[in-house]
């Protein structure tokens, strides 16, 4: 069979004829269906194109604002230890025993002393980040921390300035050694509620 024969055969295949009454009544069936459509559906496509564009624009704007707001109000991953009330309750459970509360990617740890020998002072909030890894520590002046494989002492002066002092590492809000500069450190006294 060649192309011409195939075309002849396809064109000769007529669609079955319907009665004259069918063709007469069909348009009426359509208008009856259209009349039965709820107004909302009937006029769904009658809203001018400009109105659709405006509506779509507003929807995009609202969505953008919602995303922006959700990002800006995203809960800070280490916010838990910024809550003075939570820290206060933890300290109250173990009076003068809490050396540090540490929160990192593995979870939250409570480091306690065997005896109630930790002097009472204002808790200090310290956040130490190296690359993507961050650690938040609640501790007290005079306690020791491990930072960059070095043991450093946490000190706070009367004005609430925090210092981290090690053999090679030193950090304060105004001065840092190069080993401390490679980290991102924040520290401040934690107000208890």
């Amino acid at each position, binding site marked *: 069979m060649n192309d011409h024969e195939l075309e002849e055969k*396809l064109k000769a295949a*007529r669609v079955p004829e319907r009665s004259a009454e069918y063709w007469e009544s069909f*348009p009426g069936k359509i208008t009856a269906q259209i009349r039965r459509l709820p107004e909302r559906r009937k006029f769904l496509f009658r809203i001018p194109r400009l109105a659709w564009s405006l509506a779509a624009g507003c929807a995009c704007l609202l969505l953008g604002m919602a995303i922006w707001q959700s990002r800006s109000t995203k809960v800070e991953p280490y916010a838990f230890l910024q809550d003075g009330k939570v820290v206060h309750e933890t300290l109250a459970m173990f009076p003068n025993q809490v050396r540090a509360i540490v929160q990192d990617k593995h979870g939250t740890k409570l480091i306690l002393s065997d005896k109630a020998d930790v002097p009472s002072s204002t808790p200090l909030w310290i956040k130490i980040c190296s690359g993507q890894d961050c650690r938040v520590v609640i501790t007290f002046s005079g306690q020791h921390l491990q930072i960059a494989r070095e043991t450093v002492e946490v000190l706070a002066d009367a004005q609430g300035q925090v210092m981290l002092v090690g053999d090679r590492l030193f950090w304060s809000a105004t001065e840092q050694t190069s080993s401390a500069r490679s980290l991102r450190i924040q520290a401040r006294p934690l107000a208890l509620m």
Partner: protein
Amino acid sequence: MDDEQRAWIRDSQNGNPHAFESLVRVHQRMIHALTFRMTGSMADAEDLAQETFVQAFQRIDSFRGDAAFSSWLYRIAMNLCLNWRQREIRRNRLHEKWEPPEPSEDSSEDPISPEVQAALMKLHPKQRAAVILTICEGQSHAAAAQVLGCSETTVSWRVFAARKKLKRWLSSERAVQ
């Protein structure tokens, strides 16, 4: 498209169902032929033709007269037919699952060309659509591409592939007869 049709379109766009009825009267045979060739069933063809015109009325504001009104209608009908095929497959699967098999009914109700319709129905729906538009309806590949929403090359390729299959099937039918 003559002035009378333009006036019917304009009136339909203003929500006049009587003007739309006149448009249906002019295009009903063409749409029924298309839906029958795509489905091989008189009942389904009627349902799809009705759905085509109802959707056309709902969307008539989007018709801007860039193409012929008939091409615009073809496009709506063809999309419905291609979706109908998917619905049909799902429906058949469901029936097979829940109902005992019934004796198969010849889907083609055309007494003149059952073997041609059967061969068309064996084609992939998109190839069938390309053949129906270009060969049966005599549209150019460019016009068919507009209706099908694809490139002219894609239409040509589908027609080429469909021709090969149809020749094989219809030749073997003839040999059997």
